């Protein structure tokens, strides 16, 4: 690998980590969900510093071409993250439903109480 490519890969991995950390810092991503991405960022950084690591992993997995091992692991990881997001979204949907329903019922109660309040003083006079 050429020195330039090596440097670019390291810089890109660093930039990715900084981006994720910055998102957490600014409150745009919650640490709980960003943690997985930080893990990816660190693995990317390690691999770009020591590309030889990938060969070791591929050998351990009995995969002939190292980059295939990388693709396989990446796809596995993305699938698991997406499944996790589906779970999170479904949970949100349930909570939004409950909130919407209860807000609507409260709204009705408030309107009824307000009506009662405006009627009562009139009766006393």
């Amino acid at each position, binding site marked *: 690998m050429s020195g330039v490519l090596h440097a670019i890969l390291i810089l890109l991995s660093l930039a990715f980590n900084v981006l994720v950390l910055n998102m957490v810092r600014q409150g745009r991503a919650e640490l709980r969900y960003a943690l997985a991405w930080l893990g990816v960022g660190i693995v990317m950084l390690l691999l770009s510093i020591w590309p030889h690591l990938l060969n070791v992993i591929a050998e351990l997995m009995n995969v002939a071409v190292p980059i295939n091992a990388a693709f396989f692991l990446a796809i596995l990881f993305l699938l698991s993250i997406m499944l996790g997001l589906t779970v999170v979204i479904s949970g949100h949907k349930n909570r939004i439903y409950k909130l*919407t329903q*209860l807000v609507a019922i409260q*709204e*009705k109660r408030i309107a009824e109480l307000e009506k009662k309040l405006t009627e009562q003083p009139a009766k006393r006079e």
Partner: protein
Amino acid sequence: MRILVIIPAYNESAAIEKVVSGLLDAAKAFSDACDYIVVNDGSSDRTEYVLDEKGLNAITLPANLGIGGAVQTGYIYAKQQGYDVAVQLDGDGQHLPAFIPELIAPIARGEADFVIGSRFLGKGSFRSSSVRRCGIRILSGVIYCMTGRRIMDVTSGFRAVNRHGIDLFSDEYAKDYPEPEGIVRALKNGLSVCEVPVSMEKRETGESSIGLLMSVYYMIKVTLSILLIGLEKPDGKLKEAER
């Protein structure tokens, strides 16, 4: 026996007033303790305005949740207000309030927790496409396999439940296409379900909630969810009943 009629309405500004006045007329004949609640499912038309103007008893959802979420809001309201019986009546006028006494009768006699108004038990002629009838028959078969009970009109939204049903449905109700799932959930939780014959009007306004393209999705989704509910372990309520 306090009765609440739940009327889900999505973009029914043209029909809703007629449905409510029809219900109130019919209610005079059978009960002096029959209230109604219109659940406006975040309609984008003038439904909310009409409800306000006519002073109808209504809950307006701030966002569109779909039929399941709207009906469930009615059940939650029924539970909070302590009603004994909840009846579902469509906001588009296809269900006839004159049949409500027949829906409620088995509950009043203590023979059923959950009564479905069925179009397939002889009363009136039910005209719908053969595709639709076939779909209903398939779902009816799936429910029979999972629960051992033969329910004919599994997609009927004209139904009544007692307090057990109100508790169950305010707790757990399918979000879209909830009718067949509701039957399975009720049976799974040990509620007794029965059908009574009713006839229905052709819908006057509004669109069917199921378009042609959606029917395949509908069948897959509903069949799967019936199977999954069927495989669920019966939850606490049933265990309590067994003890």
